[in-house]
């Protein structure tokens, strides 16, 4: 195991219980996703992991060794990309990366090469002499990443690296993370964006209120819930009695209107599209567009907690 959290409990002085017997294990070479809404304890667990925060009970090991603030040998193998951009406003892009890399790699010639590679990696070549203030949101996030990975760590922690980033930059960041993983780095990735976690993570922990509420691969998580399919139909003349007609179809367990769309949820098994269409035709219900989708991680979260991931 690269990272092992065992029954970690953390309560802030304010009385807020941020982590409650939290446990998870990260294996070498995987991209490990921590998914949960804001305030679910993702960042707190990362800060405990890095020995920044005190916690009342539990045990944390990294690379098989107990983590403490003085374990500089362990810290030297970790790269951190914090949620909030943390760079020096007074330094240029190049100087910032060089500074943070220098805190890990004292050798100047080696560092020079690493900094160049990091700048290449995040495609900031054209901005190396820019000060952070002059960079767009996406570019400054890339600088934030470069500062955390330049020393080529074997464990990299990304804490919500795509917050407030445009879609193009977000894709670049996600591609970069996959590339780092291909190069051998173990990744811990926290996010409240289920699409991102679904897109890049090998193993996912879903957190809420400081606890792990479900974990597994994305397939395992989706298979763990009763929902098999969601069909959405644009009903042109929506009436309440239509809902009962659809609910009568075997395997359908929920049907409701969401604005002008009828939402039909059914259990696992074959698709229910033919049966739904049949009911609509037989009852001369006029309809327009129709979509069918498989369960998402949001559905997993919704089924377990009764609320949306982004609530």
């Amino acid at each position, binding site marked *: 195991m690269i990272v092992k959290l065992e029954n970690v409990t953390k309560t*802030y*002085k304010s009385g807020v219980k941020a982590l409650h017997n939290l446990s998870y294990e990260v294996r070498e070479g995987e991209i490990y996703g921590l998914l949960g809404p804001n305030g679910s304890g993702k960042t707190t667990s990362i*800060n405990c992991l*890095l*020995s*920044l*925060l*005190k916690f009342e009970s539990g045990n944390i090991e990294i690379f098989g060794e107990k983590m*403490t*603030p*003085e374990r*500089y*040998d362990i*810290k*030297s193998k*970790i790269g*951190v990309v*914090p*949620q*909030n*951009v*943390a*760079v*020096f406003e007074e330094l240029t892009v190049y100087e910032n990366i060089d500074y*943070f890399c220098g*805190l*890990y790699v004292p050798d100047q010639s080696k560092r020079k090469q690493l900094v160049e590679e990091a700048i290449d990696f995040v495609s900031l070549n054209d901005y190396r002499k820019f000060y952070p203030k002059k960079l767009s949101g996406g570019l400054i996030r890339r600088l934030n990443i470069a*500062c*955390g990975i330049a020393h080529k760590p074997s464990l990299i922690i990304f804490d919500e690296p795509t917050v407030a980033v445009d879609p193009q930059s977000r894709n670049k960041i996600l591609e970069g993370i996959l590339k780092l993983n291909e190069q051998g780095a173990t990744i811990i990735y926290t996010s409240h964006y289920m699409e991102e976690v679904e897109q890049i993570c090998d193993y996912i922990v879903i957190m809420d209120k400081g606890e792990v509420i479900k974990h597994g691969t994305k397939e395992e998580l989706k298979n763990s819930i009763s929902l098999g399919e969601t069909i959405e139909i644009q009903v042109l003349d929506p009436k309440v009695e239509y809902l009962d007609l659809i609910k009568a179809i075997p395997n359908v367990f929920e049907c409701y209107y969401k604005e002008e769309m009828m939402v039909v949820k059914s259990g696992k098994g074959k698709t229910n599209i033919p049966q739904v269409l049949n009911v609509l035709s037989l009852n001369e219900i006029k309809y327009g567009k129709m979509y069918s989708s498989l369960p998402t991680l949001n559905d997993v979260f919704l089924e377990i907690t009764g609320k949306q991931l982004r609530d």
Partner: protein
Amino acid sequence: MFWTFVFPLCLGTFFYLGFGNLSNDNILSTVDVYIASESKEEQLVNQMKVIYISEDEPLFQVNTEYSQDQLENKLNDNEIIGYIYTKDGEIIYKIAENGLKQTITKSFLDSYIQVNDLILSVSTSDPSKLPVVLADLSNPGDYLEVAKSGTNPKANNFIIYFYALIAMACMFASYWGMGLVNDIQADVSPLAARVSVTPTHKLKLIVLYALAALTLHFIGNLGLIVYLRFVLNVEFANNIGLIILASFVGTISGITLGAFLSSIIRGSINKKEGMITTISMVLSFLSGLMNVDVKYLVTKNAPILGYLNPANLLTEAFYSLYYYSDLGKYFFNLLLLSILSVIMIIVTFLRIRGNKYDSI
């Protein structure tokens, strides 16, 4: 950067412009001093009479004809600017309003009281040294020298304000010290949290940051001293090297003070900045950087405060160059300042080393 490089130069220029408007006559004309007849002290009167601006022009014209009540009436009628009387053995100088002549008189009285205290102290602690001290004191002293060296109207009586300016510039280094801790203490900023998770030892970081801050701020102070001495032509006598040394030690103490305060004050950067500005101002105020009388009051009533106040130790070092030409006192104050700095940096390190925080 503003407090390091710009503000002291601006303030120095303002001082120069302000004092430059005062003519030589304004500064060094004879001052009429009234002492209540019932409070007349021969020793004080004699001391005042031996000080001359030039060969035939005394600094003080002493009058002891009137009683305290009469002088009080004269003061109320604006016939005199002030008078001296004693109450319970304490010499009091009562004035209607502040002014240059009043300041000169007050400065003299402060020196007189300090010298008397010194004689009393030596005669109690080591009477064998009394003849040496008295021999030293029989010399009209630095005060007369200052009064006589009236060739530089921008310096002399007002040079003390330029010393105070250098001392205050040293105290501004506390902002660097605060920045030092803010960049390392994880619960202060995301940047500090990021630095805290790197494998570089905290002590190494503190030392490196402090050296960088010292270099920058000391360059700023050197610039200020050069500007005061060679652009504004402020006469620092022949002790420019000692001023630079005091400025160097003062900068270190400013940085360590800022780091120390930042490490013990919990809260946001803004809160820390506000607190450090306030505390620095209070320390400067208590050390007499804004009003020399306050320094005297503290020294007299709560001397321990003076020894714990870096701003006070620094001004003491500067004043010992200016008032007393006493290198022993100068180096003693710098030694105390250095010890205080070492203590503050050790406490800072203990506060932020290997810390885990409740929240960040």
